[in-house]
């Protein structure tokens, strides 16, 4: 059945709520308003205000309450409207949720799922458009997911809820309207990266909102005679190094595509991972296509110019097939 990424997420939420009385949701305007991105639309009517819990504007407070509820035996799913607002809750996520199991010498676990809308492309400017995936991926004690397909939107939540530790799930705002075939029930893991397009000459490594752009770039490269493999990381922490390295060892060239700003990006980590483990297999240095290092601007032509785009990916790829400098 064809469905949208948004519908797939909603289906996953509905199934989780129906299947486990411990599951409930908290977040700003997830109930009566119907969700900023309409993901939770209808769930309030179906599950009631106790389980679809509209919160005041208190990101730190309700994320912290999510941690407490998880410790208290529930399985909360907390929604943060936009990744920029998650900065208000980072203390609870990083200083409490991520550390709790460790600090308590393994006595307690925090089975909390946090859903965060992320990314740019909707002209909502600098305070609503950023990508902090690598900040989260840096933190021991949490897992970080980035569903980039309708199937993962449908399937990842159940796996996240089954995980005993905090899981942060990034939903790129440009993906909500993405449509694809997707069965009613999907089982996916939250440990592995996936090959989304097999290829032999170049590894294009990406995740989240950049996956569709990367697939477009791969098709263009095919017309230019370059057979690119596209790897969707899916899980940003812990990284599935074997899958990445197998692809790079085979293709011998790699471009990493990441909507984070270039300096200190997740792409940097992937490049480091590659050179540390497959240096002698490379025919060219890995390249990065990231966002330009500027806050995301409002005007469309500017926003387009600062984000990764298929043409930039193609250009970066082609540059790896030139002659190496002397």
């Amino acid at each position, binding site marked *: 059945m064809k469905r949208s990424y948004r519908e797939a997420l909603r289906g996953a939420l509905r199934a989780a709520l129906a299947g486990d009385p411990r599951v409930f949701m908290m977040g700003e*305007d997830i109930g009566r308003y119907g969700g900023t991105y309409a993901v939770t639309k209808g769930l309030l009517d179906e599950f009631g205000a106790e389980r679809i819990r509209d919160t005041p504007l208190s990101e730190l407070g309700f994320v912290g309450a999510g941690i407490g509820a998880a410790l208290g035996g529930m399985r909360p799913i907390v929604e943060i409207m936009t990744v920029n607002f998650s900065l208000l809750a980072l203390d609870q996520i990083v200083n409490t949720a991520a550390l709790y199991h460790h600090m308590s010498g393994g006595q307690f676990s925090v089975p909390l799922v946090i859903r965060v809308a992320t990314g740019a492309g909707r002209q909502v400017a600098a*305070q609503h458009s950023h990508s902090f995936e690598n900040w989260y991926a840096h933190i021991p004690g949490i897992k970080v997911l980035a569903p980039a397909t309708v199937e993962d939107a449908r399937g990842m939540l159940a796996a996240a809820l089954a995980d005993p530790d905090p899981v942060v799930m990034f939903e790129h705002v440009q993906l909500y309207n993405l449509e694809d075939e997707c069965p009613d029930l999907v089982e996916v893991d939250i440990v592995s990266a996936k090959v989304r397009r097999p290829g032999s000459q170049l590894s294009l490594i990406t995740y989240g909102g950049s996956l569709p752009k990367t697939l477009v770039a791969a098709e263009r490269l095919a017309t230019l005679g370059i057979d690119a493999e596209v790897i969707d990381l899916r899980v940003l922490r812990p990284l599935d190094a074997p899958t990445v390295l197998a692809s790079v060892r085979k293709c011998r060239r790699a471009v990493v595509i990441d909507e984070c700003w270039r300096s200190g990006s997740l792409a940097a980590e992937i490049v480091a991972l590659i050179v540390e483990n497959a240096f002698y297999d490379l025919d060219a240095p890995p390249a990065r296509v990231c966002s330009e290092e500027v806050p995301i601007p409002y005007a469309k032509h500017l926003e387009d110019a600062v984000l990764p785009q298929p043409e930039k990916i193609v250009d970066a790829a082609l540059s790896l097939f030139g002659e190496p400098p002397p």
Partner: protein
Amino acid sequence: MITAPPSGPVPFDDALARGLLADMLRVRRLEEKAAELYGAGKIRGFLHLYIGEEAVAAGAMRALSAEDNVVATYREHGHALLRGMAMRSIMAEMFGKVEGCSRGHGGSMHLFDARIRLFGGNAIVGGGLPLAVGLALAERMQDSPRVTACFFGEGAIAEGAFHEAMNLAGLWRLPVLFCCENNLYAMGTALSRSEAQTDLCLKAASYGVSTLRADGQDVVAVHQTTRAALERLRNEGVPVFVEYQTYRYRAHSMFDPELYRDKSEVEAWKSRGPLHTYSARLKAEGRLSEAEFLALDSQVGDEVEDAVAYAESGTWESFDDLMRAVHTASPAA
């Protein structure tokens, strides 16, 4: 809170009385046009209309002096315009053009103007509050008489930022005018579902600040209350919190399906609309004729058309200039 529409004589001289009407009308027409242009795809991103709440910015701005500081939110077209920003500049910003106040970097939610001391345009709910406290601190440390007016919605009150900012202002007795625009909803969340204590003045009083409340649909009450607040602030040397009770007639933003409130509630509030009740009062007093109103409206219409034409003919920022705007070019003096 929905009582009889404001009525009775307007206790202001003609310049002020008509000025307030013109102010509200300019905001209204600017935003009606913006909504239209959003539909046409000329304006994008988030667009938060102030329609229904114009009396607050109109009454408050005219109580402030030109030297004072203003901090606003993402619902700030009215504040920017009535603070003195050219309509052209606002419209061009919403079009994303270089001629916009923020060169098209910010859009509707990020109107800034150093000349009139408008410090944004902040799209993080509550984000402007600590900043306003700091501005007030700077003024105090520089022995300046400036007041810092900070506008924010009642939704911001749940945020920790509100709490920390109020406490700092109260503790340090800083000249901040906290202007709470209580329109009863934060997106789809009614005040009663976001605050344990819905008496906002009572809440604010727990920070040792002075508090006042005004009918935000009545531009006369808003103006008088704001003047009184500023007086108190100057005399008592404490920050003042003013609650303006108002209502948003339109959706929260252009994406809001408005599932959370009844049409009848909206209609009831519309019967107290700040523009028509106020112009009715002026007319009842014989201080405004229908012809005069129409003339004013058409003049405002011209201003809006001019702003649109200006924005339309504006230019696009170059990528290189954008990249240069991340850091300040020359060192601070």
